[in-house]
């Protein structure tokens, strides 16, 4: 579904040349939920903007369903970290969710249906007439998620969506995203700096090196599909996986991969193709 091949991004400007992303290759299968983690400043946002068609890569390419991304693809939605700035304060919740649908030239009846369905699935039917700034942070991010759902994307990109909400809200939103993913079968690429979150949510975790970025490791998360905050997070397997990811990230910061002492019981997914 989502193919990233040899992606490279170099920023040039005012005499400085910054290689943010060196060479990234990975795939996300249709209906898969993949989390990207990496040390801070490793070019996660750059990668996501390239995938979302908001930035043109210096080299390499991004393919969605076999088609090359040259601008924002019509079957992809992005949920940004800064919900307060990503939602438009001059529009009510309903209008915020509906605006992208108007660009899709859908009929008014179909738009209403999609908006109502999306708001219902994030549990915000009652807030349709409110302005985003009348809602709490967690609710605002739910509105942003509803806006993405109503757009009916095949691929959903999430850029550290829960970095700005409190821990309890974050747990609720994580369960919401996993629930929606299982219900709707969307392909999700979830970028985060939170290791626990990546392991808890993902079917697979891609660990990025520090900048200039490459994929340090791909790790299959072999936890049961039914996960919950209470039991999954204290499962021994969860602890093993998170420890492994943590070590890889520490190693990424130092720039040397660790000698893999967990390798016997960790089944790394083979590189794509």
């Amino acid at each position, binding site marked *: 579904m989502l193919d990233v091949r040899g992606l490279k991004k170099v920023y040039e400007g005012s005499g400085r040349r910054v290689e943010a992303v060196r060479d990234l290759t990975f795939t996300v299968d249709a209906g898969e939920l993949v989390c990207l983690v990496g040390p801070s400043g490793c070019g996660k946002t750059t990668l996501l*903007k390239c995938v*979302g068609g908001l930035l043109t890569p210096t080299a390499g390419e991004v393919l969605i369903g076999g088609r090359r991304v040259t601008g924002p693809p019509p079957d992809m939605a992005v949920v940004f970290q800064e919900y307060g700035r990503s939602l438009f304060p001059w529009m009510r919740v309903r209008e915020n969710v509906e*605006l992208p649908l108007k*660009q899709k030239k859908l009929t008014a009846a179909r738009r209403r249906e999609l908006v109502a369905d999306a708001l219902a699935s994030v549990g915000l039917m009652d807030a349709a007439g409110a302005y985003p700034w009348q809602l709490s*942070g967690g609710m605002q991010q739910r509105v942003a998620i509803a806006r993405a759902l109503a757009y009916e994307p095949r691929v959903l990109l999430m850029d550290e969506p829960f970095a700005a909400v409190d821990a309890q809200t974050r747990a609720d939103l994580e369960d919401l995203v996993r629930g929606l993913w299982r219900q709707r079968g969307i392909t999700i690429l979830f970028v985060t700096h939170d290791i626990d979150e990546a392991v808890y949510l993902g079917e697979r975790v891609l660990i990025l090196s520090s900048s200039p970025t490459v994929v340090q490791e791909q790790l299959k998360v072999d936890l049961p599909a039914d996960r919950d905050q209470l039991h999954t997070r204290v499962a021994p397997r969860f602890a093993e996986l998170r420890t492994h990811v943590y070590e890889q990230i520490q190693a990424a910061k130092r720039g040397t991969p660790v000698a893999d002492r967990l390798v016997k019981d960790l089944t790394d997914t083979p590189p794509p193709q």
Partner: protein
Amino acid sequence: MRGANALLGACGLAAFLALGEAVPRLGLVDEEYFPPTSRIADALAGELSDDAFWTALGDTLTGWAIGLVIAVSAGIVAGVLISVTPYLREATASTIEFLRPIPSVALIPLAVLLYGTELRSVLLLVVYASFWQVLVQVMYGVQDVDPVAEETARSYGLGTWARVRHVLWPTALPYVMTGVRLAAAVALILAVTAELVIGAPGLGARIAVAQTSQAVPEMYALVVVTGLLGLLINVGARTVERRALAWHQSVRGEVAV
């Protein structure tokens, strides 16, 4: 609290009017050039019952309104175009900075040469003065677009026109409103000035006539009318602003979540 403030305001105004009555009556100033409040009020009542006064008021408001509409439309269109077209902002910045400080009244001779005492001379001055107020505010407003909002719009496939309409315009609107409010005040000043100096029909011309015919209380009454107009225009503009910007931080205040 608001009631108390209104009461204080009314007391202040009453004291001011009483002072205006007392000072000439006590002979502290020459009553001929500074008539007491009551005589100005009489003259004002006289004006209000005179058809010619209403015609003059209509002329002034016509010049003000047409000039303001032209200036606001042109300012918004030019401001958006200059801001969104690459290089145009840099190319026009120095010219704008040169033209903007030219006082509109310096163009009075030009207006007379071109249009004599017609409405068009008033419009020339009004438009020139208020256009810059709007243009500059629009250009600030367009600069204020949040990059995250812009990227959100782009990622959802909003084209250039849709982004101008749904992102750029609402972002710039608070600035536009400020520009319009300033322009409305400036436009009134210029409309009255043009009438006064050039003699185009309107309240300004009527003030000049009252002055030359020694009708001093009438002259003051007309000045009071122009002041009231300015006050009404400002209150009106603020009301429109509050309605249009109910969502904006400056109007909505802090919301408890």
